[in-house]
């Protein structure tokens, strides 16, 4: 499917309101799929399950009961709900953007779109915003109004200080006691080993983990043509950098970092998705849906 069918991130930046933005992205994305992922409202039969006490009698297949005198519940695809928890990195480095969109804004759009999909599928969705500690936490829920709360929380995200995965992850591990999908949206300026080691324990609780690695195109290939004085947005350190270095050595080092993070994540059973802020969101959404489908 050609990518130009999807809205460019810079165009998305012109849409006011995350709800409208998420709806625009998701509806456009879904319209392009061959098979509707709208499990919740599909009439497609999924499975029969024996009735257990406490099940809703409305879902009992009375025709089967008439023939077999046993109670079975008929389940459809849309009824296989899950929990989506998004961990959004709000450290200072996420404020970088070489074009109109910063990484944090891209992360907002992505999170909003994922929340919208979850909302349509009646999945519970929750949000954790962190930098070197947890800044905001919304428990996953599928209740009415949860989407607006999540979007509102996304809009209120402000850039914090530096990234520290250990402290916030230790903190919110206690909230993720029910299995679901956990997506971490970050630029992962940290040692890949440390990142994977910190996040990996979540998987042991039955969670499906996906790492959305958000990078600006200028971070992948800076392309400075003359020496510049760079200032670290987190540490505020400065450094004179020659164009030769940024052209030859830096790309190799960032590629090695990405490769290391990707391979370590896969080895640990984590899904990894590298996102370029200059590209549309469909790649991230597709990754999520594949993961979501795998859980059913």
């Amino acid at each position, binding site marked *: 499917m050609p990518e130009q069918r999807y809205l460019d991130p810079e165009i998305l930046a012109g849409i006011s309101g995350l709800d409208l933005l998420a709806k625009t992205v998701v509806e456009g994305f879904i319209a392009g799929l061959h098979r509707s992922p709208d499990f919740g409202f599909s009439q497609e039969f999924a499975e029969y399950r024996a009735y257990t006490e406490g099940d809703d009698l409305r879902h009992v297949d009375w025709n089967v009961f008439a023939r077999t005198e046993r109670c079975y519940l008929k389940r459809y695809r849309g009824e296989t709900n899950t929990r989506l928890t998004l961990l959004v990195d709000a450290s200072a480095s996420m404020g*970088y953007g070489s074009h109109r969109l910063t990484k944090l804004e891209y992360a907002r759009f992505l999170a909003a779109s994922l929340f919208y999909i979850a909302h349509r599928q009646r999945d519970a969705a929750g949000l954790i915003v962190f930098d070197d500690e947890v800044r905001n936490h919304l428990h996953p829920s599928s209740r009415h109004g949860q989407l607006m709360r999540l979007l509102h929380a996304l809009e209120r995200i402000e850039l914090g200080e530096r990234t520290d995965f250990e402290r916030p992850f230790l903190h919110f591990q206690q909230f993720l006691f029910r299995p679901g999908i956990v997506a971490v949206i970050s630029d992962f300026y940290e040692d890949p080993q440390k990142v994977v080691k910190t996040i990996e324990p979540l998987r042991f609780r039955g969670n499906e983990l996906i790492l959305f690695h958000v990078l600006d195109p200028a971070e992948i290939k800076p392309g*400075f043509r003359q020496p510049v004085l*760079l*200032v670290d947005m987190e540490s505020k350190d400065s450094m004179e950098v020659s164009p030769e*270095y940024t052209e030859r050595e830096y790309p190799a080092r960032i590629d090695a970092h990405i490769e290391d993070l990707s391979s370590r994540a896969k080895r640990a059973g984590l899904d990894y998705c590298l996102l370029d802020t200059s590209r549309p969101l469909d790649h991230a959404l597709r990754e999520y849906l594949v993961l979501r489908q795998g859980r059913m």
Partner: protein
Amino acid sequence: MGLLSPWFLAGLAALALPVYFHLLRKHKSTPVPFSSLMFFERRQQSSIQHRRLQYLLLFSLRTLLLLLLVLAFAGPYLVTTQAASSGGRRLILVAIDNSFSMRRDGLMEEARRQARSIIGGLRPADRAQVISFNRQVSLLGDPTSDQAELRAAIESIRPGDSRSSLSDLVRALGSMARSAGGPVEVHILSDFQKTSMPSGFAELALPAGVTLVPHPLEAGKISNWAVESVVAPARVDDRGKAKITATVAGFHTEAADIRASLLINGKVIESKVGAVPAGGRAVLSFGPVDVPHGANRCEVRIDGGDSFPADDRFLFAMERSDPVRILLVHEGRDTRSPNYFRTALEAASEATFRLETRTPQELSAVSPASFGFVVLANVSSLPKDFEGTLERYVREGGALLVAVGPSAAARGTIPVAGGAVQESRYASRQGERFLLVDWVDGAHPSIESANRWEGIKFYQVFRTEIEGARLLARLSDQTPVFLEKPVGEGRVLVLASTLDNISNDFPLHASFVPFVEKTARYLTGLDETPGSLTVDAFYPLRRVGGRGGVAEVFDPQGRRLLDLAETTSAPGFIVASEGFYEVRRSNGRRELIAANADRRESDFEMIAAETLKLWQGTGEPSAQGGGALPSQTRRRPLWWPVLLAALLAALAESVVAARYLTVSKEGA
């Protein structure tokens, strides 16, 4: 290698600019925020030095550009030595001074001897040319290697009466050097008087390719007495008395009593003794003396003389003539015009002019040619014969004053001058209404002493239209009241009013007397003949563009100076030597002009040796003593290749600067 304008090297101070901007000014970088420096290393902090190293090429180019520009303005040149024969054969110019001061004893002989010596030293490949110079340069033959021809040219040189001028010689050398097509070596044989130097030394700058070898001729004693000037009237009236004053000057002399005599036509009339201070002057007054009738050859001479007698006398001419006859034509009823005119004329110069009055009816036997000028005082008509004769008289150099009154206006035209009387402007004397003079040409001889005609009341004037006339006075209503028109060799003055105290009150004003006298002198030409001239002066024979009357000129030796065609057309002649020149005009008039050498030639002080050396330095370096020149040095200017290099440096700087200094999007 040298520099023509080394003071431009001060521009090298501009090199401080690139040094400051590239090396001294502290580098400032605009910080660029970046998400993380995790993948950058500290070792890359040498980028500033790296950048400076890159900019060193730009710095070098800018410095080089400034350096080359300053060098180009400083005018670099390369001194190259060139074989004398390579640019053509060498031309030896032998320039011998034949000015008035070279008349001193033995000086010209010494010049000839040295000239012969120079000619004798010529190499077979050399060519030589002999020239003489004073105010003018004379070429005595073409460049040649023939010794006999050159010696003959040297022997033909005689001292003249002109003054020497080194600047005129240098100008002539410039054109000779250009036409020679090779190196020129000039040997100047002269007494090198200080007075022959121009006012500005720059005029002595030798042209390119000319080498100067001066040969100062010293006569030893430089003290000299001379009659510097004489003040005497050129024309003496019929009473024949004249006062003469002479200035006797001593150049580098001791104080002495000098006796000088006045001679008229060779006869000593009077002698005087004057005390002349050391190196000073004394004024001797003669007379009043009786001057004989006719043109007289006069001189003031120092008695006893000195080593240079040529300037011990000063010639001048004085003419005593009968009073100049003036013819005034008036109507019979008009007796006032002749009276006023005569009274004014006699009051001014009693014996110089004699007025004769006639009515038109009495003109049949009168010839205007026997009069100095003719006055037509408000005449209505003239006999036809007389009018034709009068016009011919004016065209051949005569003069006419026409006063236009009511009678003349009735005639309608102005005699001889042509033109018409357009209208009469009448202001009424009885009503005390009048017009005043608004503008006069104060430089005109008739008006210059007439107090600008202030206060003269004109009651009646006649507007005249005369083609080609020069306006001399105008009334307040813009009516021309006094005009002059040249007719042939003569001139016509037109007064658009009368001389009778009726149409105006001019005859009653004090300015009337000088007006009449100056007009009479102007129209008779009495003031035009000078008593004496300086040699090399121009004596005009006729007005510019004039043609007609014959003027024969005889030089001091009595030879005719002009050929037949020139006697009728030559505008004048140059007074070339001392003595008396005689001009005989077709109307029978004789003019005697005395010519004296320029008295600056009497000062024998020589140019200092240092100055001569400085003069030599303005040209190419030369071999001393007139010897052979083995080689010729030339200055080859280098400014244009330096400027070309500066242009290339500027182009390279633009390319390098465009590469380094382009504002990149990332760096912004």
